[in-house]
């Protein structure tokens, strides 16, 4: 069972007079099946915390462990493999590559460490069916609506079956209807998968859908 543990994680930007301390000793422990919403005012460090959890950015202090392993202690290639296999990311901007079809975009993470796992395409198709885009497989991102793009991004994040699904303002660019649909989709998938879901949002309405909510206050994480 996957566990995530953050111990006194701190993060600062800049140096000298321009130094800004965003996170000041965040402690957090989560386990598989947890679905957590992280809220906080702008600049409170929500996204920074998520980037650290997803090994996209290094903490300035403290430690991160996923199943007892510090991903930042891994060599570059293994760290990349960690991001590929253990973490699934959904960004506020979908970051679908315009030159590829929806199916190809979803398949993209399976190509990071060739050869792709057997049945990758079937998994991608199934996921797209699951997020309601079974009829859009051959479409380009430019031909999708905002909500559809974000759902495709969710499918892409899940294609390698990650233990951690991390979403950074996944509804930030969506209207309310689509935002709620995407949030519900994430929660449904979380329930189906039984893995760990962390969603960063500034939307109280989105956060309200989560059973567990955390807030970042002055660089520290507290239960809402």
């Amino acid at each position: 069972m996957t566990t995530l543990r953050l111990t006194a994680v701190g993060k600062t930007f800049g140096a000298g007079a321009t130094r800004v301390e965003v996170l000041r000793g965040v402690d957090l422990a989560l386990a598989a099946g947890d679905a957590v919403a992280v809220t906080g005012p702008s600049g409170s460090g929500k996204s920074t915390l998520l980037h650290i959890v997803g090994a996209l950015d290094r903490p300035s202090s403290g430690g991160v462990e996923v199943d007892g392993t510090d991903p930042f202690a891994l060599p570059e290639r293994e760290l990349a493999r960690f991001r590929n296999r253990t973490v699934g990311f959904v960004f506020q901007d979908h970051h679908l590559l315009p030159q590829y079809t929806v199916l190809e975009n979803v398949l993209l993470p399976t190509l990071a460490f060739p050869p792709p796992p057997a049945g990758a395409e079937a998994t991608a198709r199934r996921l797209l069916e699951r997020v309601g885009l079974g009829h859009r497989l051959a479409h380009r991102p430019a031909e999708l609506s905002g909500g559809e793009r974000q759902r495709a991004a969710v499918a892409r994040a899940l294609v390698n079956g990650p233990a951690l699904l991390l979403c950074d303002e996944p509804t930030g660019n969506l209207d309310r209807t689509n935002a709620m649909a995407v949030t519900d989709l994430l929660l449904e998938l979380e329930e189906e998968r039984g893995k760990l879901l962390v969603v960063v949002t500034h939307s109280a309405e989105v956060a309200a859908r989560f059973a567990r909510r955390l807030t970042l206050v002055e660089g520290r994480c507290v239960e809402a």
Partner: protein
Amino acid sequence: MRRSLIHYWRPHLAVVLGAAVTTAVLTGALVVGDSLRGSLEDLTLDRLGRIDWAVVAERPFRQTLAADLAARRAGAHVAPALTLRASATEPASGARASGVALWGVDPDFFSLYPSLEPVDLATRRGAFPAAAVSRALADELGATAGSELVLAFERPSDVPRETLAGRQESSETVEVLRLTVDRVLPDRGAGGFGLAPRQTRARNVFVDLRRLQRAVLARGSPRVNVLLGAGGEGESATAGLEADLDAALRLEDLGLSLRCDGCREGAEVITVQSPRFVIDDVRAAAVARVAAELEAPMQPVLTYLANAISIGGRSVPYSTIAALEPPAASALGPFRSIDGQPAPALAGDEILLNRWAAEDLAAAAGDEATVSYYALGPRDELATRTRRLRVRGVVAMEGLAVDPYLTPEFPGIEGAEDITAWNPPFPVDLSRIRPQDEAYWDEYRATPKAFVGAALGRELWGSRFGSLTSIRLAAPPGEDYWSAKGGPGKEGSGKEGSGKEGSGEGGPGEGASGELGAGEADFRARVEAGLRRRLDPHTAGFAVRALREEGLRAARGATDFAGLFFGLSLFLIVSAALLAGLLFRLGVEHRAPEVGLLRAIGFPAARVRRRFLGEGLLLAVAGAALGLGGAAAYGWALLAGLRSWWLPAIGEPVLFLHLRPATLALGALASVTVVGAAVAGALRRLGRAPIVGLLAGSIGRDGRPPSRRPLWIGLVALAAAAGLTAAALGAEARAAAGLAFGVGASLLTAGVALFAHHGARKPLRANALGRGGAATMAVRNTARNRGRSLLCVTLMASACFVIVVVAANRLHGEIDVADPASGAGGFSLVAETDVPVYRELAAEGAGVAAALGGARAVPFRLLPGEDVSCLNLYQPERPRILGAPPELAGFRFVQTAGERANPWELLAEPLADGAIPAIGDANSVAWILHSGLGQDVVMENERGEPIRLRLVGLLGKSIFQSELVISEAQFERHFPSRTGYSYFLLDPPPANADAVAAALEKELGRLGFDAVATRERLAAYQAVEDTYLSTFQTLGGLGLVLGTLGMGVVLLRNVLERQAELATLSALGFRRHRLRDLVLLENAFLLLAGLTIGAAAGAAATAPHLAASGERLPWPSLALTLAAVFALGMLASTVAVRAVARLPLLASLRAR
């Protein structure tokens, strides 16, 4: 990847075009190199037709050697020819051309050019004998078929002109031949034939061989001086040629003859003589070796003509005196005093008279005799000298004393019925001839009337041409060689069945007796065989030339044109590659979120880089494929330039496009590598960029303080510049040029790096929005994307660097040729003659002296050879050599091997290892001969011996750029056959130079005198350098255009990326025109920074050159050029400014 390539086709197309330009320029430069080589090879092959090789001799040899040689080389075609240097005049117009090659050829020669229509020169169709002339000569003289030509040339002489026997008035040595032009031959083909590779058009005249032989050679068996050969079986047309020639040569070809008349009493004797009158040291040594091998007694003899032998009041006029030692063996004949005792050996002050002379002079032993004789000094100074000698005794008129062969055939004397019929090449007073002298002549001919010791003879009459006139050999004692064959009156010069192959197995030094066949078992045959074995073709003055191989080798060129044009195009190549890299980088930056995503979903950074690198390489390959067509076009354009605007660089429009697949492939590969490197450089930061930043669209170093690396790079580059400057101060010319460029490059790097360091730290002032604030903002904005700004500054700085360096190197103000320290050495005219001059120029006639008007004429000996200046595209292997007189001084030396008040004195100082001191022009030595001070240029002397010319002095931009200069003494030693003076420096006042030249050309037209102002000669050399600099400027200008284009792209991209920023400024109250000003100011700042850095680096790099030449940079014209560059850059920025005007700022603001 395919999807990405298609999706981003627009930016990719730009990259492909950038790569295509890189390929076109880089490969095009290589194509120029190939074209040079290919064109020169074509010229060589056209010039030679089927001719593969040549046998060239210093003196004419028997024509039948051609058939003998052909018989030894199965399938070979050998054509004999007689070639002379001549001057030609077209009498109708008076047009004159010097340096004409006159060829006497037979139909065999033209058959070596299969595509040539048959040429018949033996049949006279006009008023005079028929001639075929090259198109080049016909054009120069304005001659056409039917025109008359008058050719003047020196008649070949067996006897060296600079000996008493060979001396002749120049008017008597010049032969004139009047011809009718029958055919004008195209320059390509037989018309352009010549022994030396050259790209200039050949001035050739071909006449019937027999006609020329009749005109210039003495009666007898026909002779030639060149054999031209083609084909033959075997792996190479020239394989074994030397051995075949060696075997085919007869003794007469080797310059010796045997006379077997024997003495009137006593043993039979062979007399070895030379048609050159004197026997040189090499041949004399060979005879001595053969005599030793055969154990044959030998007696060297030097016979000379005395003007008078006087004792008391009596005098015997015009008598020969033989210098010899008494014979060591009786076989050489009796040599007895009148008392019957053997004649005594003579001391250095003694003389023996024969009985006739003693009686005529009433002389007795102990009397003092005075011998007067002519001595030939330098430059034909004929002086009468006397020597007092004591009469040691009187020899009987018998045996050796009356051997007529003691005196070789004396030109103008031999064959005369009586003394009054003499016509010797020196003044004689025939009124002094008495009846008894005629009686002696009738009975004894030129038999010596007196004898002196051999040492005294050498002292008085020896010369660099030799110290013997004959060598007598007697059969070894106890062996009756003569009993088998031979006898009085037999001239032993023929081969007569005693082929050289009989001696081919024996090497020098081995005894001959065991190797001779039955046919050679007589003394004369053994002597002949021995001499032929001892004398090889080289020592006899024959040279075998593999013309085709040499020509193709020389066609590689003295200058590496591929490297040269690569260098000239380097700025363009770098600009294109950087532009391609920049465009690719912009594309990558545009796709930063994609990179971020790939890395966020687990793609390793290296894999992402490889993916983009793969895209970049594919684009580079596509660009290279596209650019190969451009390479052909670029190469063609450069060659077209070399045939027109840049023609002075190559002299003749002879270069045409040659495309070689291997070169195209190499160029494409190199271009892909270069562009790939630029792409890799563009991707370098991808791996280091934070994923989060990439996702946000940035590949910058967000959050990190500015690096101090630029500062360190700048300091290191400054230190490198200082080090290179120090190294350049003591380096030789070629290295110094490279080091100076290195200094400039280092300073350029330092400037750009320090700009980067400074730009990163430029503080935004509090009054940024106030007066002057826009400028500060603009400066600060340039640091927003430092990489792009640096690229712009680098391109601009490099362009300005090139402009300044080229401007400095083009400086060569008016040369004061009258200044002894100038490249002209104080001489305003340089002249050459087709016929050598043997005396002071002023002595050639009153008209000449008047024309000179007191001007000095310094004569040089000249060995024709290949031009070693930049005017010759071929790689010279046989440099033209000048023999400088000891009085030469002046000129500007840039390097010498030792400190001397007059560095020319270095030529006379012997070198311990036997090398010959030589002086050359620094440019020619460095760039054409690829040598330097203290290094050796190896060549062969006249005897085929390798000689090393050690460069002991280098001249700066002198008139000696086409040749190397050695001392006259060394010249005479190594090239004794090259008699007379054919090269002159004259110092009339520069204002009168043209008039003096015209007058001298008129007076000395018969000698083919051709004078050129030294100013013109220097200008011709300088034109080559200037042309290359123009080429560099032009190509650098194209690079500048590319750089400007790149800058425009960068600015436009900056503006587009900053839409939101500009919108914000607009919202803050900035009006559009202020935003435009801001963009313009940014550009102006980058331009000014680049211009300043480039100009400063250029000025520093050229400072040593300017200091040495005393010139100053032409700042006004440079400032104008730099201003034009600035204006061009500002023009490019208007693209960005227009974009600002069209930006939907409000929409951008809303989007933000």
